[in-house]
């Protein structure tokens, strides 16, 4: 499948058009759910850390410091990608599965189109570009959500929160989060594409392929999460 994907597109303009369509589908289409989960993710993290850090010798700003690192290192890339595996992964698998079953892929093959290059490659490229952007947004919103939850719950003030955010900040953590985002983005687009493209049968098989794609994608994300943490941290 990889060999076919990397061959030169028949028509660059059509490839670009499809790539932009995928960028909109993956990026804009998933923005809503990313906004919601990241804000709540930050809020809940603040509340739970405050609940556990009860020692009077630990300054309140430490809560923000832990929230920042947890969100940047783990929650923004991994949790968001697990959700995206469901949202984007199932959409890719069912779209390609439906195209396979209804002979739309065969129709393109007969026209002389390299369908792996035209249908799968734009999805992978769009995911690799859009998902890190979504994760960056998730990181910012998660941290912002943490601040708001801290203020609303009377746990710590905005000044204390910002002071904590600036303490011991390591830029490497951002690099690590974005590196994970690129790896997860590739998994989120390629695994469902493989399952969708190779569907055989009817509607039932599309559903099965979609479910399998999401499950395998989630497991691979968690496995790679562990592997990257072990190698890069």
């Amino acid at each position, binding site marked *: 499948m990889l060999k076919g994907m990397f061959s030169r597109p028949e028509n660059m303009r059509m490839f670009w058009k499809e790539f932009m369509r995928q960028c909109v589908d993956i990026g804009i289409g998933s923005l809503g759910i990313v906004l919601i989960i990241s804000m709540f993710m930050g809020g809940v993290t603040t509340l739970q850390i405050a609940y556990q850090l009860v020692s009077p010798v630990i300054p309140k700003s430490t809560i923000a410091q832990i929230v920042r690192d947890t969100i940047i290192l783990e929650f923004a890339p991994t949790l968001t990608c697990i959700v995206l595996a469901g949202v984007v992964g199932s959409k890719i698998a069912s779209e390609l599965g439906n195209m396979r079953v*209804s002979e739309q892929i065969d129709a393109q*093959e*007969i026209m002389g189109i390299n369908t792996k290059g035209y249908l799968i490659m734009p999805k992978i490229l769009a995911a690799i570009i859009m998902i890190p952007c979504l994760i960056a947004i998730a990181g910012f919103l998660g941290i912002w959500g943490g601040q708001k939850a801290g203020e609303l719950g009377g746990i710590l003030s905005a000044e204390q929160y910002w002071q904590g955010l600036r303490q011991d900040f390591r830029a490497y953590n951002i690099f690590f989060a974005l590196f994970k985002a690129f790896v997860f983005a590739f998994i989120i687009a390629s695994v469902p594409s493989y399952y969708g493209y190779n569907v055989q049968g009817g509607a039932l098989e599309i559903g099965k392929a979609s479910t399998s794609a999401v499950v395998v994608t989630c497991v691979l994300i968690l496995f790679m999460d562990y592997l990257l943490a072990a190698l890069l941290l």
Partner: protein
Amino acid sequence: MIELVNIKKGFGDKIILPDVSAVMETGKVNLIIGSSGSGKTVMMKCMVGLMPVDEGKILYDNRDFTNMTEHEKKEVRQQIGMLFQGSALFDSMTVEENVMFPLEMFGKGSQKEKRNRVMECLERVQLKDAAKKYPAEISGGMKKRVGIARAIVLNPKYLFCDEPNSGLDPQTSLLIDKLIKELTLEYNITTVINTHDMNTVMESGDHIVYMYKGRKQWEGSNKDIIFSKDEKLNDFIFASDFLRDAKEMRQMEMFQSQDWRNKLKKD
């Protein structure tokens, strides 16, 4: 002209096409008929290159399609139009965009010229008014006609139709048959139709290949079929009492014509 020379195709131990040779003639509607499981769909998929053959050759105007490089195959494929059983229209595109798709991908010329060509094809299938509709908004017969418009938009030399009448009412079926026949003659295309439909066989079958258990059982035209003595073919084509009566009536009509009496005497 498309020639199939001793093609063999199997899946694992199961041989679907043991050894088939046939010629699909230019400017004629060539039909592949046979009961379900007789290998006609596999044969068509081998012809268009969706399935590789295990042995044998497929020649497109004497060019060996089976031994071509991917690049050469792509060139031949751009001369092929295909109408699928389920129409295979792209759901996310309008009727106009569906017909425009092959032109956008491979066509030359300005956007205006391409649009004019699309409108010309849609007018040919009487669907100009449905140009802005999505496939989900049109009927089965209209979908087939959009499929035909998309198949002919690049002026193909070869047109393949996989069960073009399945799921359609008799009147719409006749309309589709008529359209395919007209296009075949108009553009001098080599048309290959895979069908079960007896109306199509009798109305459009310039050249018919009857498949039985993966083998070519009979070959001839829609006129020959009336006088065929092949038992298996007769059981398949004239399956009901009504059709057997119709066959006898047609035989009598044809026998009364001088040309056919002469032909039968010669045979």
